[in-house]
């Protein structure tokens, strides 16, 4: 891809915005369209674009495979861990109502009420979506590494 300066420059400009958009979709998924699945795919596609344009070694330097591997399991653990946490707090598995707390939920600054930490159901959904997002990003990236690794070694 070294001979395509336009592709290199345009993707260099675009990748930060794709990543930012992925994070927006992840954390704004409760309010607008979006969520863990979409955010994971968008984040992974930004890294895959980087790998396609600048080469697999460059992508592997940004997201080393051994870390990506751990993240595959981490996402499922975050999801299931949320369920276990709700059980330890005395509720059913994945019953987010027991996550209700009154710590810093909202503060008033200059007459305006700001929402700080999400509470209850909202917090549970947030944690679960983070877990989904981590797993989907890591799996998509790992699948790409596997396929791309084949390519370089079989040529």
């Amino acid at each position, binding site marked *: 891809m070294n001979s395509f300066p336009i592709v290199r420059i345009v993707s260099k400009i675009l990748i930060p915005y794709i990543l930012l958009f992925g994070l927006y979709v992840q954390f704004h998924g409760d309010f607008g369209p979006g969520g863990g699945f979409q955010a994971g795919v968008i984040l992974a596609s930004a890294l895959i674009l980087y790998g396609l344009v600048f080469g697999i070694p460059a992508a592997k330097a940004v997201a080393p495979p051994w870390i990506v591997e751990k993240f595959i399991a981490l996402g499922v653990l975050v999801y299931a861990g949320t369920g276990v946490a709700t059980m330890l707090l005395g509720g059913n598995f994945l019953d987010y109502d027991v996550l209700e707390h009154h710590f810093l939920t909202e503060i008033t600054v200059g007459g305006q009420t700001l929402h700080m930490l999400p509470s209850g159901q909202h917090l549970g959904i947030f944690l679960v979506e983070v877990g989904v997002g981590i797993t*989907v990003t890591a799996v998509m990236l790992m*699948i790409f590494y596997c396929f791309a690794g084949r390519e370089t070694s*079989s040529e």
Partner: protein
Amino acid sequence: MSNDLWQLAITTEQFKGLYNYWIVIFLMMTGFFIVISRKNMIKTVIGLNIFQTSVFLLYITMGKVNNGTAPILGPEDAHHDDHSHDKSHDAEHAAHPFLNQISEQTPAQNVSVGNEPTAPLEVLAEAGNSGLIYSNPLPSVLMLTAIVVGIATTALALALIVRIREDYGTIEEDEILILDRES
């Protein structure tokens, strides 16, 4: 409805009400045709992908409500200030009289299945302060997870194809069968 087999003349109303299913069935059958008529494995996976996307479309068309909008509640319908328990109880109380009201209003033409009375969604959707009608979120949820599982299984299939190519040197089903018989 068994008469329909003999009355194949399709009314305009039927066409307007059912065209979405027919389009989806056409797309599905195209995908199915690719799957069963082609020997190339990548082409088969592409056919499966098209079949799969058509199934997503089938579900999504069922969730559509006339004059509806996306199931993301507007600021009038969402209670943003419900962080305390008291207020959420208020919201539940506010919801209950309305629910009783709609079960009384159940029209006679809606045949009730089981013990639960059914009510048209328009009545339900006007529960929102804004009066907006929301399309059904449930098909969206089901398809959302199905899409991501679909790409995961597609990736697995493609990985198997890559391995098959490395061992057999071909991805045509009939050639692989010949190689298998020879060995």
